[in-house]
């Protein structure tokens, strides 16, 4: 019998436990959670903060009755030799240990003391109220928090450190559009540190993998807990998944990656073969007049080719990096239908369709053009010879491209129109085109 112990009670842990149980894992399952509250979806904390959802509403479904859950018990140490976890008042024995400790908020040097973070449900109480909020940060969390607070009627300032907001993800154009959207929602956007504040400072400077427990136990740690593509840490009895893990060299933030990793590990531990191939998840910012999304490795993979659509008048932008027809990175703004399409394709690992402009614009494509191409276009630009001139020459007896060239000068310049003239002469000759 394999006793599985999970340290952590967030998105990755919850999904893993549910999957393990569903696949009929024969041994015991124990969940050790640091917070006293049952598992909840921390991606929805912003909604709790602004009051659109209650704390209960973001709770995750209860575990199976056979799962042992220890709440309010932060894990403080591992004994890898005896396979024991010390957490709160408990000492728990494991055959397999799964670390799903998630992330902790990054506190940049020089941050004001007493600044708030939005990481756990208990943080919401500090931030609710009427006072103005200064959100400090550059990334998706900062933008979303600022937008949500503005929608909820708070006076919000977003102070960002980098030159342009999310330019490294959305590009210069996308960044400009996003900043414009934020301002239109009532957020004051400015570059720089928190500055003189009124009200609360909310730090949204990114999340770091929570690796303290693993590090102290002597497991290899880089950015995250080092794990291979089967989620094994440097101790084969211990796995790591979710935001705390560096799987096959990559830390994958976000819920979608957490679910995929959890599903894969649950499969592996219940007898499936195979390994984890990584998740390409689309980060989507929505609400408050924002519709931006991006995905892919950063920095961008070299050698990928790019398609893009830029529509400044309608404040829309999309850029996709492709390897063949597979999307490896991208960013979109102001294109809700296209973003939904692309998100689905990326999630499924499906190729971008050949009609990529249609896919990106979705139902927002411009009306079918009413103007047809000109009837008598120029065939040879160097010598300014029109299609009619070629057809006339053919009618007058020039039955080969060489004869047409003599009669009209077509093809005698740069030679670029040779294929077209040849095709036209052939079509006139075999009657598929009228002279």
């Amino acid at each position, binding site marked *: 019998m394999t006793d599985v112990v999970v340290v952590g009670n967030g998105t990755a842990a919850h999904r893993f436990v549910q999957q393990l149980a569903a696949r009929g894992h024969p041994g015991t399952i124990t969940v050790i959670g640091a917070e006293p509250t049952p598992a909840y979806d921390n991606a929805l904390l912003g909604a709790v903060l602004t009051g659109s959802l209650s704390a209960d509403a973001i709770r995750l479904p209860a575990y199976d009755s056979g799962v042992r859950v220890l709440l309010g018990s932060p894990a403080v140490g591992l004994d890898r030799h005896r396979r024991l976890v010390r957490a709160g008042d408990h000492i728990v024995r494991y055959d397999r240990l799964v670390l799903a400790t998630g992330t902790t908020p990054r506190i940049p040097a020089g941050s004001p003391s007493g600044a708030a973070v939005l990481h756990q449900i208990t943080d919401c109480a500090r931030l609710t109220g009427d006072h103005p909020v200064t959100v400090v940060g550059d990334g998706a969390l900062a933008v979303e928090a600022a937008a949500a607070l503005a929608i909820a009627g708070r006076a919000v300032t977003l102070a960002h450190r980098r030159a342009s907001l999310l330019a490294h993800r959305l590009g210069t154009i996308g960044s400009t559009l996003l900043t414009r959207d934020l301002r239109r929602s009532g957020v004051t956007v400015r570059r720089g540190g928190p500055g003189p504040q009124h009200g609360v400072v909310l730090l949204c400077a990114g999340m770091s993998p929570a690796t303290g427990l693993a590090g102290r136990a002597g497991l290899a740690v880089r950015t995250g807990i080092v794990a291979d593509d089967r989620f094994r840490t440097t101790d084969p009895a211990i796995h790591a998944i979710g935001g705390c893990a560096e799987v096959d060299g990559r830390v994958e933030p976000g819920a979608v990656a957490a679910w995929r990793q959890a599903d894969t590990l649950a499969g592996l531990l219940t007898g499936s073969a195979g390994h984890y191939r990584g998740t390409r998840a689309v980060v989507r910012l929505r609400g408050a007049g924002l519709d931006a999304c991006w995905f892919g490795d950063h920095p961008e993979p070299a050698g990928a080719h790019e398609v893009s659509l830029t*529509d400044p008048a309608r404040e829309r932008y999309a850029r996709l990096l492709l390897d063949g027809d597979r999307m490896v990175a991208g960013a979109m703004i102001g294109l809700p239908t296209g973003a939904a399409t692309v998100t689905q394709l990326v999630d499924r690992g499906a190729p971008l369709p050949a009609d990529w402009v249609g896919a990106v614009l979705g139902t927002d494509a411009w009306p079918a053009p009413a103007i047809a*191409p000109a*009837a008598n276009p*120029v065939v040879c630009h160097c010598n300014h010879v029109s299609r009619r001139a070629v057809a006339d020459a053919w009618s007058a007896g020039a039955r080969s491209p060489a004869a047409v060239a003599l009669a009209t000068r077509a093809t005698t310049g740069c030679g670029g129109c040779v294929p077209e003239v040849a095709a036209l002469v052939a*079509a006139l000759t075999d009657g598929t*085109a009228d002279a």
Partner: protein
Amino acid sequence: MRDEQVVVVGYGMVGHRFTESLLRADPAARQRIVVLGEEPWPAYDRTRLSDCLSGQTTAGLRLAPQAVDVRLGCRVTRIDRPARTVVTAAGGRIRYDRLLLATGARPLIPPVPGRDADGCFPYRTLDDIRRIRAAARPGARGVVLGGGLLGLEAANALQALGMTPLIVERAAYPMSAQLDPAAGDLLARHLRRTGLDCRFGVTATGITAGRDGRVRAVTLSDGEVIEADLLLFAVGVTPRDKLAADCGLAVAAGGGVLVDAHARTGDPRIWAVGDCAAVAGRRLGLVGPGFAMADAVAAHLRGDPDDTDPRPLPPVRVKTLGIEVASFGDPHGANAVQIVRTDRRSVYRKLTIDGETGVLLGGILLGDIGLLAELHGHLGAGVSEPLLRLDCAAGRDEHLGRRVRQAGSSGRRNTAGERLQPQA
């Protein structure tokens, strides 16, 4: 118009083209045409000047001889409009019923201190080429001021002479009139890979000569000093519109004889075409549009009805740089929709489209210009799938097929005189 005397002032490529167009339809017209060329040699292909530096003889550049009264080395000094006569420097007076001005343009020499040093040349005429060829030394450094079409051609020419060229361009990237920053950046990277040294975003602020009066170095606006054994001016041209201005014809604010879309000046007997003209105030500076204008005037003089459908300008197309570059319409389109496909290394394709109507406004092709004919044919018309994909394989085959099928429906008109459009 059948018995009228037509006088052509200027025997460059466009003057030559006009004469050829007129003769093609009516060989008998040769008795009524007089061409007055200022240069002492007959019309030659100025776009292939650099060939003369890599072995081509100047005679090889000559355009086809024309059996009309061509007077070389003959400079017109004045147009006497009331008397319908042009006056030459030698005192000759030639009467005209119709007058075509094809006087071209002269190279712009930027007012850089030291520009009179030996070894500094414009890059425009056969004479310039001869002097450049005489002054060039293999292995020596040649600086070209100007990174547009002309500058790139001049740099290419220097490479053909065995010199090491360096381009100085004011814009942030080469061919800034035809390309956008992304395409320009790819082109710049390609040029550097071919060994062409470039400086962008700077101008020349001083030319330094040695004690022998020969150019030694160029100072740039960012302070860099560049060694130069030879220097070429390729920053632009100014239209030669003085004849027109002196006789009271309107001249555009930026220079050039002001003409309408049919090349007409304010005088019903006088037209202006080519580099000397500004169509609705805009100077085009390329031989393609010049040819189109020349053909249009010739057609008019033959008695053909004027073409009421304004044709789009031909694309700009360059193959001399080891990479193909094409640009058409208005590829800048500040507020238009821009659709791009690029491998971010050596292939770049862009369409500029009106966001309301879906009409194609312009485009840029770099590295692989296979879609050029199809796309250019859609200028001013709607463009949709599959051309929008900017994928060479898909676009070309389908559209070549479609255009061939449409070959015969060549603009028939209905009884009301309206042009019939085929179904797309």
